[in-house]
């Protein structure tokens, strides 16, 4: 396998709230063009890690680099290069989809022409072009989540952080969301860091996963590799759920 370029690197990254470590000496890499699944139960520290990588929260200790930039030092530059879909993302209710995206585009300093072009293409990608003049307040949860993805796409980022992108979606909608994300990675070559506690939904698209429990990353690697290590079974005889439960019991 060729030597891959790490786009995100962390070393002993730590975040403590009131002396309690929410993220505990986390070290991992994400390579260019891959979908990295960041898995773990609620409260494992996934969101906290993403916030540190975005420069929205200061780490207590340790280092992080995103596209060669330290997010704690230069958050504005990092935020310009990353598209972020927050967990429980909200929208301005009285704006329509187009206006929402235009606001994002302007905040990113895009020219009017570029903004219009990118908004149209983003809306087409998430199939919301026909509904783009409706107020976001009337959108279903699935549509909002897709609009969230469109807000990521407008930035045309090299890297996207998607925090629980399938949370609260019915299985069918969740599936389409996952396929959408896979398409972005395949077609646009986007690197995706995706967090989820719903393993069965994301397992088929992640190239590599990291399993996080109580702020520590207990395992990382390709799923085949993890399965063999832990369950002693070969390919196709496991689900991510099983691997995960194994680690969970040990922790």
């Amino acid at each position, binding site marked *: 396998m060729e030597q891959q370029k790490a786009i995100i690197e962390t070393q002993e990254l730590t975040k403590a709230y009131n002396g309690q470590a929410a993220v505990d000496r986390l070290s991992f890499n994400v390579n260019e063009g891959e979908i990295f699944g960041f898995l773990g139960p609620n409260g494992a520290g996934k969101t906290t890690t993403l916030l540190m990588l975005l420069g929205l929260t200061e780490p207590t200790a340790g280092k992080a680099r995103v596209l060669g930039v330290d997010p704690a030092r230069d958050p504005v530059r990092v935020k310009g290069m990353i598209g972020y879909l927050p967990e429980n993302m909200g929208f301005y209710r009285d704006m329509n989809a187009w206006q929402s995206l235009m606001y994002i585009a302007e*905040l*990113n300093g895009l020219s009017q022409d570029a903004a219009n072009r990118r908004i149209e293409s983003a809306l087409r990608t998430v199939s919301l072009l026909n509904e783009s003049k409706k107020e976001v307040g009337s959108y279903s949860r699935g549509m909002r989540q897709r609009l969230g993805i469109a807000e990521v796409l407008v930035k045309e980022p090299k890297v996207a952080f998607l925090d629980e992108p399938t949370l609260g979606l019915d299985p069918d909608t969740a599936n389409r969301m996952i396929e959408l994300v896979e398409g972005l990675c395949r077609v646009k070559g986007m690197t995706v860091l995706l967090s989820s506690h719903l393993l069965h939904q994301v397992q088929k698209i992640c190239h590599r996963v990291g399993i996080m429990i109580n702020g520590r990353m207990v395992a990382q690697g390709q799923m085949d590799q993890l399965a063999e290590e832990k369950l002693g079974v070969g390919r196709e005889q496991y689900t991510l759920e099983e691997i995960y439960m194994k680690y969970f019991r040990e922790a």
Partner: protein
Amino acid sequence: MNGIKVIFKKELSDHFSSYRFLLLFAMIVMVSLVTVYMAGMGITKDLEGVAKPKFVFLMLFTSSGMQFSLVQFVAFFGPLIGLILGFDTINRERNEGTLSKLLSQPIYRDAVINGKFLAGVFIITVIMASVMLFISAMGLMTIGVIPGIEEVWRMFIYLVISIFYISFWLGLAILFSILFRNVATSALAAMAMWIFFSFFVSIGANAFASALTPDAGESDPESAIRRARIEKALSLTSPMELYTDSTATIIDPMRRTPRSFIQMGFMEQLSMARFSGPLSLGQSVLVVLPYIISLMAITVLCFAISYAVFMRQEIRSL
């Protein structure tokens, strides 16, 4: 810089399309029209058959038609404009989950506060400027006097001080919207501050001054003066007091000092009566400058606290 501009623009269009702004505007315009209409009627009646004093036009703002003059009205209700515009600035975005999205764009955190504050100041300017224009138009109609150049200047300075004053309350409301996650709590806290400064500071200043200087009756003017000084100094902790004192001298040129008469000696009062010519514009400004600076200083203080708190706050919505 780009961040501030974009946020400013968005907030402004939000304000202009909101019912909150519409109702606020309608209310303010109604009250000031009534006040000034009454004041105008009063002035015309008083001036019948009398030589016109200088600065008749300015009396529109200071003469109390029904209950209070416009200057008093703005001193008391102006804060509400600032509070209503700002009490849910940050916490609403936090509760709706839009704050993390906004802050994950390539902007500095303070751009959010600055953009929103400036949009509020713009709205305040629009409201106050239109109120003053309404009043001037009404004044032209009811008393039929055209303001002189100096009167226009004084009105302009009054407008600027009023905008600063209301902006202070806007800044305070934004601070509360950062400190409290619940919108109702921040609204209540802001109202509490308003009531505290409107009533308690003056009552408290009076009580405190009385306690410090026991009343020795009329035989001891010294202690009466001392008491008045203490009371004044204490009440200056209230932005209302700063505002009333500074605008009074600007809009009412016959006043030479923002202090009350009791603090002047007898001879001083006499000479004031004898030479009751108006203060020149430059002198008026000199007299009120310290008040204006204090007003700006407390606004800056509000901001400093807002920045300090907001920069360290966790932005996640839950």
